[in-house]
């Protein structure tokens, strides 16, 4: 099955809300300008159960969605590798097709 458009790497990072600015700073270090932040409601992992209770955003998680050229995405991934454990990140990578490839250079 072939899809219309051009291939790009889709990176999804599940991260605690207070650390999002740090992620965005890392993105711009790799000249990746675009991203979209998406909400989540609750979850469970090795560190236990969490949900979006109001009291503090310390454990409130969001997903940072980034579409980028494969090379840039790879370089970015290498840079966040050391943070995976301490920041408790979940990273999902896949290949998708986009319609205006020049926007995701």
């Amino acid at each position, binding site marked *: 099955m072939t899809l219309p458009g051009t291939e790009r790497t889709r990176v999804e990072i599940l991260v*605690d809300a*207070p*650390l999002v600015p*740090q992620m965005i700073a890392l993105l711009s270090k790799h000249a990746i300008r675009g991203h979209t932040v998406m909400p989540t409601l609750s979850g469970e992992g090795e*560190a*236990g*159960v969490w949900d*979006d*209770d*109001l*009291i*503090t*955003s*310390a*454990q409130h998680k969001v997903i940072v969605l980034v579409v980028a050229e494969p090379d840039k995405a790879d370089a970015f991934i290498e840079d966040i590798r050391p*943070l995976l454990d*301490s*920041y*408790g990140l979940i990273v999902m990578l896949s290949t998708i097709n986009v319609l205006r490839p020049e926007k995701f250079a």
Partner: protein
Amino acid sequence: METLLSPVVLFFVLGAFAALVRSDLAIPEAIGKGISLYLMVAIGLKGGVEVAEAGFTLELLVAAAAGIALSFILPLPVFVVLRRVGKLSGVNAAAVSAHYGSVSVVTFVTGLEILTRQQIPAAGYMVAVLALMETPAIVSGLLLAQRYGGAEPRPMGDLLHETLTNASVMLLVGSFSVGLIVGKDGFSSIAPVFEGAFRGVLCLFLLEMGLIAAKRLREGKSLTPRLIALAIATALTNGTLGVLLGAAIGLDAGTAAALGILAGSASYIAVPAAMRLALPQADPGLYLGMSLAVTFPFNILVGIPIYIWIAQQVVR
């Protein structure tokens, strides 16, 4: 005892009960956040209006200095105890100690309510002291983490900016200033919202806090009996120190009790967010568990009456 039967405390108990029997009762996140912003604005305004009436006094300055000192210094003994007795890692002990040096707005507000009910009100300027005590502990905690926990040093400028502009400081100081400027007359037109509705809204917020604290206690993986005991002992010790310091610098009983409540309380809004950012390797389950699931309910149900009692003994 009579304290425990105030509507505010009863709603806290109701929330905790609902969480313990695993009810699906939940307050939408946006409502909870909205109420907590409202409470900060209301308490800030009230403090500002009261200081506008009473004027700036030397007492205010002395109390402010005492508050700042407590917030800076309290993390140190807490850190030592958490490392030695609690067997926590350096980074974790530092992160937790920052919470205990800082303060809980809702504990303070609940304390004021109870003081008012008992007819020994605290001075209006204590709101300013509350705002001043929010952040010094964050600095102490991070310095401890750098020296004893191997945490990487962060640029002090960033840190200062974050702590001075954090939402609670902004709202408390900002609405304190608004209250100061508009005074009693300007306040009267907005009093129905910020004064008349205050106690009722506080009830709803404590319902929510009861839910959250009990849920966290139930699910908390990082909480051992030893840490629970330490969370209580730290609150009691800090609270007592706060009252004694208040008495020593000549505050009246209500105001000294309020300083004790501030010292004995632990942050669970601003400091956890700052720690997640600055010390991501520290365990949030630990510091939120201790401050929110143990110390907060302890203070609401037991701590506040004790600090008030001590204040009544030592001040006359």
